[in-house]
């Protein structure tokens, strides 16, 4: 079994109105239940919006702290799920379900093998 990170990319700014958001939340919860029932789920979390992020850099012996996300842009990671899957095809199948549930793009990345 391999571990995969499924990240949700979400536009910055206020969340959509309840008539849009509510069914999304319901679908995402249902998918979480499905992941757990299938024994695939390892960990998942939603994040506060990117404007709440802080970046710390070590440079020439100094530590520099800056407000905001590391990468500028209009979309940032809004949440992620870690799953266990036998191969990329299985992971992509869950990513497809996740993309449908969230209506947002999902980036799939394999974990390095742990030795």
């Amino acid at each position, binding site marked *: 079994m391999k571990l995969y990170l499924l990240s949700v990319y979400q536009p910055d700014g206020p969340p959509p109105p309840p008539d849009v958001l509510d069914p999304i939340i319901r679908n995402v919860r249902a998918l979480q239940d499905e992941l757990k029932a299938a024994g695939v789920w390892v960990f998942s979390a939603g994040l506060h919006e990117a404007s709440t992020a802080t970046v710390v850099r070590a440079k020439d012996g100094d530590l520099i702290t800056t407000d905001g996300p590391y990468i500028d842009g209009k979309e940032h990671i809004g949440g992620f799920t870690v799953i266990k899957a*036998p191969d*990329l095809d299985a992971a992509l199948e869950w990513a497809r379900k996740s993309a449908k549930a969230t209506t947002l793009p999902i980036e799939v990345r394999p974990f390095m093998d742990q030795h």
Partner: protein
Amino acid sequence: MPPPPVGEADIERVFREEYGRAVAVLVRCIGDIDIAEDAVQDAFATAVQRWPATGIPPSPAGWIITTARHRAIDRLRREASRDERHAHAARLLASEPSSGEEEAVPDDRLRLMFTCCHPALAPAAQVALTLRLLGGLTTAEIARAFLVPESTMAQRLVRAKGKIRDAGIPYRVPGAHELPDRLRVVLAVIYLIFNEGYTASAGDGLVREDLCAEAIRLGRLAATLVPDDPEAIGLLALMLLIEARRAARATTDGGMVLVAHQDRGLWNRRLIEEGQTLVRHCLRRNQPGPYQIQAAINAVHSDAEHAAATDWRQILQLYDQWMAIAPGPVVALNRAVAVGEVDGPESALAIVEGLALDRYYLWHAIRADLLTRVGRYQDAALAYDAAIARTDNAVERTFLQRGREAVTPH
């Protein structure tokens, strides 16, 4: 009796025919593409040294696979101390019975095809991997064929193989629910290889003919391995029917000759017959798709003894069918050419003018031809200029230049 003499060409032939099969078997046994490739290449290097003295063994593929397997076991054992995975693979490989199963499981090459053409890989990487692992082309050959520096192609291959390994792209035939979509990608890669070889753009002419031959070989393989898919057969038929016209499609100085003006005596009757038989065979299934329809259109062309005998009504019907299942501006443009033959250039021009294909050189070229035929020479000259400005292909430019000269007052 002494063995018949074995030349380089004989070994080359075995290499072309069996390289992909051997790599596919080894990848299944080892689960590591790089080790599988190295082992198969070692085995062929050994064959080059030995076969001239011993003769080609009765089952060259079996010999290559057995030799490659031993090479792989040796290497994995050497590296076993560093990596538990290698130790495991070596034990597995050595413990498998080695007699009788040297022949590939029929699915091995198909599995490898689906791995190379996985949608998680970029199209350029899919093409390169397929040519490398299934076709046995060297990185340098693939780079030459696609007009990129060898280092770029090498990087592309390393990156793609790295992704297969690290992201866990599986080595298997997809399940029934995924199969149709995944097969579309495999067929698209094969057709891309064929088109790259067919387009007479710059680069090494010989390598490009090799690409067509390789695409047809892969197409035969796909049609054999997935006999239930009429589009796989349609693609093979399409490539054979186009390939059949190779000798007639260029003048001796490399100029381009349209189907209408080709010397049909130069067409390869054997390929046409095979292509037409396949077209009839797949159309009987009554599950038409774009490749089958294109093949059928080409079959109609190859039926005509001379250009004037072409059954344009039937071709137009096939384009109508194509538009019904997969409408698009490029299909509509090609359909307009058939309309021009059936209903005259005015009707065709009306269709062409309505298509938003300004960036496509063929739109301008077809428009130029139609404008010429309705006698609007000044507009035709401008359309030829627009077409010439939109193609980098020297042969096509020369062809368009001639068309332009014909409508320019002297």
